[in-house]
């Protein structure tokens, strides 16, 4: 079946709009699309989307993470030994993280990381034939927001499409929540979210808000946030009595 932008696509559908374009711009086929000779096929079920100038992709629901270079992920350290840590990022293979890939780390000054710690890291190498490799520094050797996540926070998992939804610049969720609560959040593209707020109640409330955003349309998010704030106020006043 032939489909065009905005349609629901199924694996095996052909995308017709791409083939007729004769612009000079290079066309980029994103996730969910593949080319065979002159035809573009979808290989995932979802919604076909296009971003200007000519990037085409299929937005699909997925829970399993497939590493992509440059993405930020939340990982759990599973093994310590020699020069590298092994980190579980929810992909088919464990990622490696060098102990030198932290800010200010030298051979003598090793970072203090134990098995079970959470790290927020960036994928330096991600290819289907190779083991993924993580770093906790940018190209200037600075940590910025990367590094170990404190054990006082809470970790939970959600679908990959939800992560894309909340990390979208147009998403009002975090701005709404941040108006009345102070919290820290690290959302990895691998579907893991780490949250830390001032109290346990607030942390749980924020986690609930993020998970509830999956099935809420953009217009309902404002109401969702105020509902959660109200409930939070009630529980807090209940604690004081």
């Amino acid at each position: 079946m032939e489909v065009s932008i905005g349609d629901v696509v199924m694996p095996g559908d052909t995308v017709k709009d791409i083939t007729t374009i004769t612009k000079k711009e290079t066309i980029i086929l994103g996730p969910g699309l593949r080319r065979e000779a002159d035809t573009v096929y979808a290989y995932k079920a979802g919604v076909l989307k296009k971003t200007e100038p000519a990037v085409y992709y299929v937005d699909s629901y997925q829970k399993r993470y497939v590493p992509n270079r440059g993405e930020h992920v939340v990982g759990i350290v599973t093994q310590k030994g020699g020069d590298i840590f092994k980190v579980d990022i929810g992909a088919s293979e464990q990622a490696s993280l060098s102990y030198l890939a932290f800010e200010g780390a030298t051979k003598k000054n090793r970072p203090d990381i134990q098995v079970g710690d959470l790290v927020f890291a960036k994928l330096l190498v991600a290819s289907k034939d190779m083991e993924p490799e993580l770093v906790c520094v940018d190209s200037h050797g600075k940590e910025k927001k990367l590094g170990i996540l404190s054990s006082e926070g809470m970790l939970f998992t959600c679908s990959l499409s939800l992560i894309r939804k909340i990390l979208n610049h147009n998403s009002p969720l975090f701005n709404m929540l941040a108006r009345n609560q102070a919290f820290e959040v690290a959302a990895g593209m691998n579907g893991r979210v780490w949250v830390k707020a001032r109290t346990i109640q607030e942390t749980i409330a924020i986690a609930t808000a993020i998970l509830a955003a999956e099935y809420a349309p953009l217009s309902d998010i404002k109401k969702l946030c105020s509902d959660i704030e109200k409930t939070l106020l009630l529980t807090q006043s209940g604690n004081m009595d």
Partner: protein
Amino acid sequence: MDMSEETPQSEYILRPMNCELNQLSMPDGSAMLMQGNTAVIAGIYGPVEAKLQKMIYDKASVEVSYSPIKGPTKVDDRMTEMYIKETCEAAIIVTFHPATAICINVQELEDSGGMLACTINAACLALINAGIPMKFTIAAINCMIQKDSEDIILDPDNIQLQEAKAEFTFAFDSMDKNVICCYTTGCFTETEFLKTMDRCKQASQYVFDFYRNLVKKYANVI
């Protein structure tokens, strides 16, 4: 049991299909499918790390486990597993995730005819839900030839199957409607075989439309 399907004008109609996606929280994709009173639940894990013996360095290995409603897995169930494996492997683009494993787990819930077709359809829906790269989707159709009247009945139930001369299960791909899987029992002639295949091919469109409507229903969440 609904016997009204014997009426000639409903010959092309399959038993009603019901499906719920993503019911299970642990697997990466799952589908619970009912075709008439036949029900199965399928869960997919993948792409996950492959065991060393089963690892194929240039493609993903597909592992299927089928559990019957009672008792341990028997030889017949192993055959079902093989049918699911070969059929799904034809659809999955295995080269996209080399050296990994894609595990398909199917649990039988109730058998009232057309079990193999139902398991293949459920596995396909679970693969769609898990976001596994696929060349096309698959629709499996079960049908039979009646003993006395020589009529072809599509998607028969248990009671209808008791009067069967031969039973067929065909799986088709969504692109060219080619046969990818064929399972037959009983005696039949070549013309009968081709006729049933043609009838199933027409009916497969109904299943593909069902898949698309299902995805449309949950696509607004994305």
